[in-house]
């Protein structure tokens, strides 16, 4: 693998739409559940071990070359919130566009053709990593990092949080990100033998509930 290629894919400026999303942080801030850097850290930790783990496992499995449509169904079943499914497909479509421009591949083309309105973002991310010559560990790392960096960036804007505090939160979480990515890859490697049921299904109730509430707001800074 190329470490620099991984940085290109993981860069927050990779043009795949992430900047417009808070990963549920906007709803949590509005409900008073995130008030400061400590709240951000607890939020990120919860997201990392639930939807972050699931996303990383899906991405790692896609990077291994498992049928992305099976994974797309598995992602649907693991995303009970309709609002979050819509977001995941929207971001998947944006990731698909960026990936096909950056690392074109027949596998990306094939998935784009059958899911023109977007497959779940982690699945596309994993396939993008594969097209870029990266492996499941890389895909999982990008997914877990996205799971926490999105909310951190958003909370800097939402609470005018000191950006150094937010970055320290990410740095403190780094060892946990590595562990979750490793767990995700281990789960991904079980899929060829045991099917997609081997993928984690960790959920966070308030992420789902908050996403549904947020989708109904008339005034908001972030799309999710």
């Amino acid at each position, binding site marked *: 693998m190329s470490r620099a290629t991984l940085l290109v894919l993981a860069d927050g400026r990779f043009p795949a739409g992430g900047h417009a999303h808070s990963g*549920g942080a906007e709803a*949590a801030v509005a*409900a008073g*559940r*995130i008030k400061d850097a400590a*709240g951000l850290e*607890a*939020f*990120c*930790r*919860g*997201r*990392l*071990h*639930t939807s972050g*783990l699931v996303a990383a496992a899906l991405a790692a499995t896609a990077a291994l070359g498992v049928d992305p449509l099976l994974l797309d*169904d*598995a992602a*649907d*079943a*693991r*995303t*009970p*919130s*309709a*609002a979050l*499914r819509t977001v995941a497909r929207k971001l998947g479509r944006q990731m698909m566009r960026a990936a096909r421009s950056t690392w074109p591949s027949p596998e990306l083309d094939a998935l784009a053709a059958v899911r023109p309105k977007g497959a779940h973002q982690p699945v596309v991310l994993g396939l993008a990593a594969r097209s870029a010559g990266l492996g499941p560990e890389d895909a999982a790392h990008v997914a877990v990092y996205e799971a926490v960096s999105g909310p951190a960036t958003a909370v800097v804007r939402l609470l005018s949080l000191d950006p150094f505090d937010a970055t320290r939160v990410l740095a403190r979480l780094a060892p*946990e990100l590595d562990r979750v990515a490793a767990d995700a890859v281990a789960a991904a490697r079980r899929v060829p033998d045991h099917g*997609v*049921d081997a993928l*984690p*299904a*960790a*959920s*966070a*109730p*308030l*992420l*789902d*509930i908050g996403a*549904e*509430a947020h*989708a*109904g707001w008339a005034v908001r800074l972030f799309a999710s």
Partner: protein
Amino acid sequence: MSSAVRVSVDEPGAVGAPGAGGAVASGGRDSSVDSGIRAVARIRAEVDARGVSRLPVLEGEGPLAVRRVRSSGQEARVALVGAMSAPLGGDRLTVEATAGVGARLDIGSSAATIALPGQSERPARYDVRLSVAEDAELRWLPEQLISAYGSSLRMTTRAELAPGARLLLREEQVLGRAGEEPGALTSRLTVRCDGRTLLDQELSCGPGAPGGWDGPAALAGHRALGQLVVVHPELAHSPAEPRMLGEHAALTPLAGPGLLVTAVAADALLLRRVLDEAVRLVAW
């Protein structure tokens, strides 16, 4: 695998608390053996020639006692009445319930189930296997699962539905008895419909759960959470409209013929209030 009686805990209202502490009876837990009880309950409903659902199989075992309940309609009704408190650490409980083609089966429980610490270091397992055949209907509406301090339980609920099957399923988890820290609880809920997984979600909380389980993304201090799942063929072509049920509960259509209500609340009572409202909204 034989039935067992165990010394009760002083837990009014708990499933199977038999009153004053009794002695360990024959076939019961031997405290010198570090292994829990294995018990299986089997329930099967079949529809007869007159369209009435019967219960050709109704077997309980150990802490999983089952009772037929008088039914006012054509459905078969069953209550899990629990002959002792369970599950304790190391126990392995299984409930298998099947609604045969066209049958209507309604299963509830007489009281909350309390996961308690046991002699065994191993976590308890509680597996619920629901199977709903074509044109059959299953209502699985047990009372709460309470995760008591010091307990460790791994619960799985798996529902398999044939095409045209209907399901109303409620699960409620209460973290700790009043004023008590919760035990370790992992609960996975999987609903499969016509061979496809409609819902797969797992919740872990309490000691040893991955970080952040009680934080702002997950429970944020709420001590009761619940899910209500409805599967109905009509939801395939007219999906439910997403809606909030108060501040901490949401109804959302699933990616298929179902819907899910997810709720968190400060306590079991408040949670039930929200889910009761949800049942009124969504039950067919």
